């Protein structure tokens, strides 16, 4: 499961020896995140985001458990119980704002983690399973975040639940019964709120379980790295501890500084004013908009405005929105290039950055009302999104001529530090 030169765990203290015989948890930790796990020496700061996502999940679980001690999942009192937390519970305002913005921070680091994977080809063999489990985590996160947003039972909670569960009613014949079954009624009501609370409490622990599988699957081939070249020998690696624990400690500090700035200085910046109005089934907000992390997908949903073939526009939108995430499951096989890192993929690199711009554009479109030019921009953006993964990527990976690659990670590192004799005397 690890490289042959990995430092073996040798307990010295009698207690640790005793523990190692009975329940070798210290051995597990040592070999997974300690000196016993060799990691490529050349990881850049983009490799911090996995640990940060884990930290974000732990913050969500801890703040969430405390919130659940004070929150009441009943449509009559849910809204006021959140305000009770904000006003009367000791440090309740802090716990609630941390949980609210913690969700945003979790998505920020996970999106950076995903795009890191896309740029450096971390989804390719031998790490396909790591990627697949990652997509599962992403889907679980989306479900959890959506249900969490419903819990304060504000206007956006209620109408968000109405719109999102409405996706299912686009399915012919079974759609409406399925929607009613999911909601436990004809509209979001107490049954909905209760089950969403139950599932919102459950799913983070499911995510935790899948994260353990994600890390397990990662530790079999070991981490990818910015060159995309696999580890060849001992000098390509450093032990995880202390090298990457130290680097992750610094990354965690930066992450927490941003988190704190958001939570304490501008806690409602990423939220919607409407969610401070109690849910009212008789009054629809002027613009129903999901949380920012769903906006690109919401834009894809809204981009389909034409009944094409025998499928109506709404169903096209729903299928496309789910497909836009589901296609990530096939990514390791859509991209047939053996070269992982975009550093050596001159053509793919361009399309990668166009995809980044495209997703940002879709995010803006998702936030805007259904007016021009946002409709056409979201349509063009959606075209590129699907074209990128399903058309461009398979073609590019076939026709692209990769740049010359170093023979090993160490060679790449040493080349970077070698005096530059080509570009002039200044480097010497």
């Amino acid at each position, binding site marked *: 499961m690890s490289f042959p030169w990995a430092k073996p765990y040798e307990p010295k203290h009698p207690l640790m020896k005793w523990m190692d015989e009975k329940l070798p948890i210290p051995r597990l930790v040592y070999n997974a995140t300690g000196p016993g796990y060799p990691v490529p*020496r*050349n*990881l850049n700061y983009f490799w911090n985001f996995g640990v940060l996502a884990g930290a974000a999940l732990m913050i969500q679980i801890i703040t969430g458990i405390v919130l659940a001690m004070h929150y009441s999942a009943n449509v009559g009192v849910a809204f006021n119980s959140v*305000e009770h937390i904000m*006003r009367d519970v000791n440090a309740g*305002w*802090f716990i609630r704002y941390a949980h609210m913005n913690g969700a945003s921070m979790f998505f920020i680091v996970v999106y950076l983690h995903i795009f890191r994977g896309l740029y450096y080809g971390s989804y390719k063999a031998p790490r396909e399973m790591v990627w697949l489990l990652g997509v599962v985590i992403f889907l679980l996160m989306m479900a959890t975040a959506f249900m969490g947003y419903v819990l304060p039972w504000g206007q956006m909670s209620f109408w968000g639940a109405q719109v999102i569960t409405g996706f299912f009613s686009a399915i012919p014949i079974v759609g409406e019964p399925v929607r009613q079954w999911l909601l436990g009624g004809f509209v979001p009501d107490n049954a909905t709120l209760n089950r969403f609370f139950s599932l919102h409490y459950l799913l983070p622990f499911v995510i935790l379980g899948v994260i353990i599988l994600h890390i397990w699957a990662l530790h079999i081939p070991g981490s990818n790295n910015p060159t995309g070249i696999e580890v060849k020998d001992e000098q390509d690696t*450093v032990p995880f501890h*202390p*090298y990457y624990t*130290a*680097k992750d400690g*610094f990354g*965690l*500090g930066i992450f*927490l*500084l941003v988190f*704190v*700035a958001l*939570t*304490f*200085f501008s*806690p*409602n910046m990423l939220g919607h*004013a*409407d969610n*401070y*109005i109690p849910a009212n089934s008789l009054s629809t907000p*002027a613009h129903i908009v999901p949380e920012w992390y769903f906006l690109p997908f919401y834009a894809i949903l809204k*981009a*389909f*405005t*034409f009944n*094409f*073939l025998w499928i109506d*526009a709404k169903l*096209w939108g729903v299928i*496309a929105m789910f*497909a836009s995430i589901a*296609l990530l499951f*096939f990514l390791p*096989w*859509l991209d*047939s290039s053996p070269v992982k890192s975009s550093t050596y993929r001159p053509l793919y690199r361009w399309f990668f950055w166009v995809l980044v711009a495209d997703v940002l554009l879709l995010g803006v479109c998702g936030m805007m009302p259904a*007016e*021009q030019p946002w*409709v*056409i921009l979201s*349509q*063009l953006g*959606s*075209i590129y999104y*699907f074209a990128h*993964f*399903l*058309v461009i990527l*398979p073609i590019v990976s076939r026709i692209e001529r990769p740049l010359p690659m170093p023979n090993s990670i160490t060679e790449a*590192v040493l080349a*970077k*530090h070698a005096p530059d004799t080509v570009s002039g005397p200044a480097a010497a």
Partner: protein
Amino acid sequence: MVRPLGFLVGLGFIAALVLAIFTTPLSNEPNVAYSFVKHPRHVKLASDGLVPHWDKAQLQRGMQVYKEVCSACHSLNLVAFRNIQDLGYTEGQVKTFAKGFQVPSINPDTGEVATRDGLSSDHFPAPYANDVAARAANNNAIPPDLSLITKAREGGKDYIYSLLTGYQNPPANLPAELKPGTGLHYNPYFSNLNLAMAKPLADNQVTYADGTKASVDQMSKDVTAFLVWTAEPKLVKRVQVGWAVFFFLLIFTVLAYLSYRNIWADKKH
């Protein structure tokens, strides 16, 4: 197998989108009201920014405006009398203040509906017994609860201040269909341009104990400041705690960076 199938699926989505582009009109339906709606005017309060504090004199004046004007129609359900100690009142003053209100209760002997003097632990009583009564008294529009109003509207405090000071006669070029109907009042800061609430404030409507001149602008600012406090009584504390946490983490991060550099000093990467 994956690639040809993916290619076909991709072409399907692209075809549906291309057709959608050609069948969606490129011009928007004109919305005349947009051109009359104004962006909220900025109002500066002591509770703004990164070093906020509560201007207690202003909050007290704002509460006076709420009590003497707004509370005739608007509830303040989330605020308890005990909370106004934050505004600089003593415990005794709060008790006396609470006593001035009658709150719904039951007769302890007969169980019949009754009222009693307010206690510090009571919340501000609502002006109407229920939504039906609120509608009936207000041209079919329920006056919203004000506890969270500065957080519950786009534009926040600026919006509330602008709305209170923004009442005016409709402009001459306003199309007939946008003119205020019976029982409605023109205000360009309101998204529909016409709202059911009549201009609530007039100069010298309240008499401030501290001698501040009660202009419409002053009263609007004061009540806005008060409603910023009701929406988030922990706002100032939040930012203060934030700085302490921020500097703590800044020191942690600097130390973490130095140890990172130290550990990697002998390793090229």
